[in-house]
């Protein structure tokens, strides 16, 4: 790998979500060609373009991939095709009738063919993984492939240079994607996970007896069948609701502060306590589904509320639910978020998961890919094409610059 991948002195735009790269894209200006010879212009354009498009590919390899035939499409309107048979375009003197003086004809946008210069590179597996937003740079995507975390059509593919065919599906291990696109752990989180690892190791060394004893001592307290007093139940519900609301309000801003982590942990604790409070023998671990858990929670709390009802008739809600629908929705949302995005120090990324900084400025998915983010899989639908006004190859360079690069590769030197 290059020594200076992201530099400030000589601007090179790279396929990466790095903040230096973002700064470079934001401040880069079009190539000033006034003082350069044509050869120098082409050289400069090609050098800049190749630093972005497939910098991991050797120049000769790219020269073999380059094709001067650029794919394009014209979107057709079936209504127009049904109405006219094409003879109207040959009317008059042979190129269609002139528009009436008061009629304004919108010019058809030019097809930016030159922006398709590096289209063959978009076929590569590593580039496609980066374009599908599964990796934060093409280099990282390449590493994922080489390390065996990527499958093509269900089979392991270890070649980052594999050229995808239309209809190929590629899958990346979701854990690797979460690691690649998630925020880094900070100092304290790294320390936390290190301590956890160390304690686990020492536990394994000492034997499981101590651990078992600890578990024994912990369980009786938790499973003690306590008769809930109505006051306790009410307090518990209030706690749960306030914590759930705090959790949801905190989830909007992306920063995960220590306070928010405390909130999440407190909610988790209360939830656990509430679920294990009643004398029912069903262990909480068995009710895995969210709705089942919520149902259980509601039923337990409404039983206690029923007991409460005769004593304080004016304070209680209707018997069928102690939660209002909004409360229930909030609770469900909080539980779902906690379950899907838990705090887990064993993960290699910051938990709860959040996108890495400056990701949103780079987040786009080109139309030749269809991505399902839930399973971290995507289908390469077709080769990228140009259409009037737009080219599908994501390139940071202007039309003119791409044209110069195209011209460089047209010629054999």
């Amino acid at each position, binding site marked *: 790998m290059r020594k200076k991948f992201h530099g400030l002195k000589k601007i090179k735009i790279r396929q990466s979500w790095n903040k230096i790269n973002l700064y470079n894209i934001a401040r880069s200006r079009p190539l000033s060609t006034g003082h350069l010879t044509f050869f120098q212009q082409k050289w400069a354009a090609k050098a800049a373009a190749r630093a972005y498009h497939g910098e991991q590919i050797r120049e000769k390899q790219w020269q073999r991939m380059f094709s001067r035939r650029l794919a394009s499409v014209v979107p057709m309107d079936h209504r127009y095709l049904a109405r006219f048979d094409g003879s109207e375009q040959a009317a008059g003197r042979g190129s269609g009738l002139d528009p009436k003086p008061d009629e304004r004809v919108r010019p058809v946008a030019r097809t930016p063919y030159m922006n398709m210069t590096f289209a063959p590179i978009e076929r590569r597996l590593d580039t496609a993984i980066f374009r599908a937003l599964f990796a934060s740079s093409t280099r990282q995507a390449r590493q994922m492939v080489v390390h065996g975390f990527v499958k093509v059509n269900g089979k392991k593919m270890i070649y980052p240079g594999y050229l995808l065919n239309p209809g190929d599906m590629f899958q990346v291990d979701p854990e690797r994607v979460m690691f690649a696109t998630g925020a880094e752990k900070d100092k304290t989180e790294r320390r936390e996970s290190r301590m956890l690892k160390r304690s686990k190791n020492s536990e394994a060394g000492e034997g499981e007896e101590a651990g078992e004893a600890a578990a024994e001592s912990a369980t009786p307290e938790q499973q003690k069948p306590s008769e809930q007093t109505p006051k306790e139940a009410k307090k518990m519900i209030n706690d749960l609701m306030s914590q759930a609301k705090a959790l949801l309000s905190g989830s909007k801003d992306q920063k995960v502060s220590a306070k928010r982590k405390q909130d999440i942990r407190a909610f988790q604790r209360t939830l656990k306590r509430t679920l294990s409070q009643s004398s029912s023998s069903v262990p909480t671990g068995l009710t895995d589904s969210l709705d089942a858990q919520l149902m259980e929670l509601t039923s337990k709390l409404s039983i206690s509320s029923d007991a409460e009802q005769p004593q304080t008739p004016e304070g209680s809600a209707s018997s069928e639910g102690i939660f209002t629908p909004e409360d229930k929705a909030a609770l469900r949302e909080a539980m779902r978020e906690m379950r899907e995005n838990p705090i887990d120090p064993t993960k290699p990324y910051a938990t709860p998961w959040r996108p890495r900084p400056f*990701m949103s400025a780079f987040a786009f998915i080109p139309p030749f890919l269809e991505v399902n983010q839930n399973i971290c899989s995507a289908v390469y639908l077709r080769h990228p094409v140009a259409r009037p006004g737009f080219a599908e190859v994501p390139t940071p360079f202007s039309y003119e610059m791409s044209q110069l690069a195209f011209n460089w590769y047209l010629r054999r030197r």
Partner: protein
Amino acid sequence: MPPRIRKASLSCPLSHLPLSTRPQPSSLIPKYLSQHGACSRDFSTSLQRSTGLRRDMFRWLNGPGAVFRDPAEGSTNYLSAYDREGNLNRRKRSARSDDAEAENSSVQEVPEEELIDLKPFPMNRNFISHNVLSEELREEIYSRVVTLGRSVRVVSAELGIDMNRVGAVVRLKTIEKEWQKEGKTLAKPYARAVMEMVPKTPYNPNNPIPHESINDLPVHSATMQQIFEPTSESRRFTREDAAKVFHPKLLPADKRIPHPELIELERERLESVPREERINRQRERLAKEAQLATWRKEKKEEYERKHTKVIAPKAGRWEFRFTDVSVDAAGKDGRGPDGVGWRYGMPHEDRKRGQVKIPTSVPA
């Protein structure tokens, strides 16, 4: 000679710091720069100086570029949506139009992004971030194709989504459902974060919003030339004639687009055929097409059955298939694509420079 020890390494005095040419407010200086100052390590002899370029970068990242650190709430967050100072362009635009009209709308509300706000690369006018299918729309496609059993072609025309994409969505959704059934963990937080950062096509049940152009005509290389074709003035020179001029075998655009049946449907509508009749005819056409497809498939299978000899051993899990090949298929130079085996004396090319040595396809 005794080792030379520089003065700086002994004490790390602050006077060795390069003078900052640009005075800047302390809030803009990144933390680690202000903390560490001259030497980051006590034993280091070199000065850790921050260059002007780095200072400029951090000034931008903490100033106008700070908006990109976290995703914008409920919208995309691309470079071209902001001006140099880091203000939203569309907010300024809407404020301007509000001034022209009236000042009754709230200031906090962020207007919808337009096409010019969707350019991730400010220098490239010809690339925008295209919409992706929203989760509801993907679910709807899956239910229409799998649950209701409609064909991909019909669903594509109904929702305005390319046929390839419809097929891909169904394929991916099927795997997602399988994973859910198996209890595998999905990358939900990642998916939710990404879907908030990209523009989406929502699902509107009553009036589906077309996602993309479904009738894209690929530009054929034969049509890339300009031809001067003299014909009589009285001749009705249609698309079909034009296609013939480009190449005798080139089909007209009406037949090369992915949804030619929509033209037929529109034509009947223009001829004011009653609605019921149109629907019936369309159904007939679709049935006919499906029939044709099955007939083709059967014929192909029959051909394969006829020309392959299958020997399936009772014990094994495999079967042996034999197909007839011709020696002449390799051609004169022994390198014909249909040739089988290696012709004696012909050197292999598979280790040559420039030959593709990795797999070129993975059968699905």
